[in-house]
């Protein structure tokens, strides 16, 4: 087990270096001089020169990359022009909200996808199965940012059940206030994982140990609850792992609309105020977050499935 984790950690190193390289290239391909693009037309030549020196723009490209790599390794991810703070400080204050939506929406996605996946798998090939598939086709066709407004119009402004946005103090308040944004991300995730969950269930139903359980004389219900379901749930861990990047990306859109002060809002604000170090630092941070969550799901999968450990 320890070796599996160690091997995965070592495989991460080139990916992490690649992520920082892409983050670095992002600002490198920008047309014009980054300093004057960032400072606008008001800056004096002296200010621009100071800016260039601060960012190391007077250095050769590879030195500039090493500077950025140093910022990532030491954990600051660069310094914001607008807030005059290390990017990581901005991230730290907003991360809990984004992680909250990621976890909350994953929970909602599972609660929506699982019953439908079970129903579809039990009815595979018949009208119930295809009806469920069509429901999820419609769900996936709904643009998340539009769905946000439809829900605001219907559940917040119309029925008054939920606030139109913002966050509250404490866990309970946020479970309530973050419900709509998490629902939007959760529904689009549910649409993506329902299909894989259905096939995972169908594959498990065909496994030899399920035949054995039936041959022992267990009834259908017991076979399903004790053998098919637990084993399919293990595979959902890896299905979610594959979709992590999608879930985290989905938070960007909903945070802005529901005024949640998370990483997504920070990214949009940075783009609007042309805070280039924040755009770069955050983009890299998002990718690292995806890689870490992937690692965690891989480890959970290995812990839950003995076959992976024995490889």
């Amino acid at each position, binding site marked *: 087990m320890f070796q599996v984790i160690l091997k995965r950690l070592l495989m991460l190193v*080139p*990916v992490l270096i*690649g*992520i920082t*390289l*892409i983050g670095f290239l*992002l*600002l490198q*391909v*920008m*047309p014009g001089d980054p300093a004057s693009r960032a400072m606008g037309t008001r800056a004096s030549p002296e200010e621009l020169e100071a800016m260039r020196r601060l960012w190391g723009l007077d250095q050769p490209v590879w030195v500039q990359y090493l500077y950025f790599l140093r910022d990532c390794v030491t954990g600051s991810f660069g310094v914001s022009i607008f807030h005059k703070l290390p990017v990581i400080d901005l991230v730290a204050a907003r991360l809990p909200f984004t992680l909250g939506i990621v976890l909350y929406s994953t929970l909602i996605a599972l609660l929506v996808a699982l019953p439908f996946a079970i129903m579809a798998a039990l009815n595979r090939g018949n009208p119930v199965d295809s009806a469920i598939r069509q429901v999820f*086709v*419609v769900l*996936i*066709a*709904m*643009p*998340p*940012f*539009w*769905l946000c*407004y*439809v829900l*605001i*119009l219907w559940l917040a*402004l119309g029925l008054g059940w939920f606030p139109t946005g913002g966050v509250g103090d404490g866990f309970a308040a946020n479970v309530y206030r973050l419900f709509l944004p998490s629902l939007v991300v959760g529904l689009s995730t549910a649409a993506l994982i329902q299909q894989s969950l259905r096939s995972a269930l169908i594959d498990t139903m065909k496994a030899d140990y399920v035949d054995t359980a039936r041959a022992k004389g267990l009834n259908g219900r017991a076979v399903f609850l004790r053998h098919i379901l637990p084993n399919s749930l293990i595979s959902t861990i890896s299905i979610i792992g594959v979709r992590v*990047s*999608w879930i*985290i*990306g*989905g938070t*960007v*859109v909903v945070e*802005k609309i529901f005024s949640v002060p998370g990483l997504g809002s920070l*990214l*949009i604000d*940075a*783009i*609007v105020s*042309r805070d*280039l170090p924040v*755009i*770069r630092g*955050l*983009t890299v941070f*998002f*990718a*690292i977050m*995806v*890689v870490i969550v*992937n690692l965690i799901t891989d480890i959970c999968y290995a812990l839950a499935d003995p076959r992976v450990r024995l490889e």
Partner: protein
Amino acid sequence: MLVLKNLPRSPAGAIGLAMLLVTLLATVLTPWLSPWDPYALDFGAAMQAPSASHWFGTDNFGRDIFTRVMAGAVFDLRLALICVFVPMAFGVAVGMVAGFFGGWVDAALMRLTDIVWAFPFYVLVLAIVGVLGASETNLYVAFFLVNWIGYARIVRGETMLISRLEYIEATRVLRFGRIRVMARHVLPNAVTPALVYSMSDVVLTVQAIAAMSFFGLGVQPPAPEWGILIVESIDYMREAPWMTLFPGLAIVWIGIAFSLLGEGLSTALKPKG
């Protein structure tokens, strides 16, 4: 061509195709169906609810929403198809070379996809457009940079499988040139799963184009882009919900059409046996 014959045979494919044809027909017939100007302001007719003369109602400037949604259909479909099929062509080419020849091209492609896939789609597109500046051209650049990789990875895997099949072995015995083998014998089969994938890609790309306009980072007003129609409606959402509803439903409609087309294609392209 065989595909076009087989596509309507699966119910999903037939419905998807029909939905798309209805859309195209409606855009062509718009001047007769709804004889309004999509841009002309008419404050006397502002924010009218849907009626027989204004099917989807009017917006805060008195512009007919049906006409604007139809103009948006032409606009968004053109944009989405470019943002999907240009990267697809490049990705298919790279994927085939990587899968057919292997070696360092293949190794580099695999590492690159591992890295790029760590970035959430919206984060990367937003960051690229954010750095380059908001414009239609930069939208193409961002989608190209992000989208080709999926196709390269799919076609690479497919090409590796096909290259080991007997009929490709046979071309080696016949001493066919590698280019000829790739273009005539590998490509038609390797491109199939990429084509099915491209349909779901269109669904997500239409949404992403609208989302980018929503953040003010995509196509700029007064283009009748669906995302722009939705953004401009937000302030009037309470008084005139149809302004928000119909452009969004247009995105949903196109999304369903392409999802069903994808389903139909995967059935139609599946080898019999």
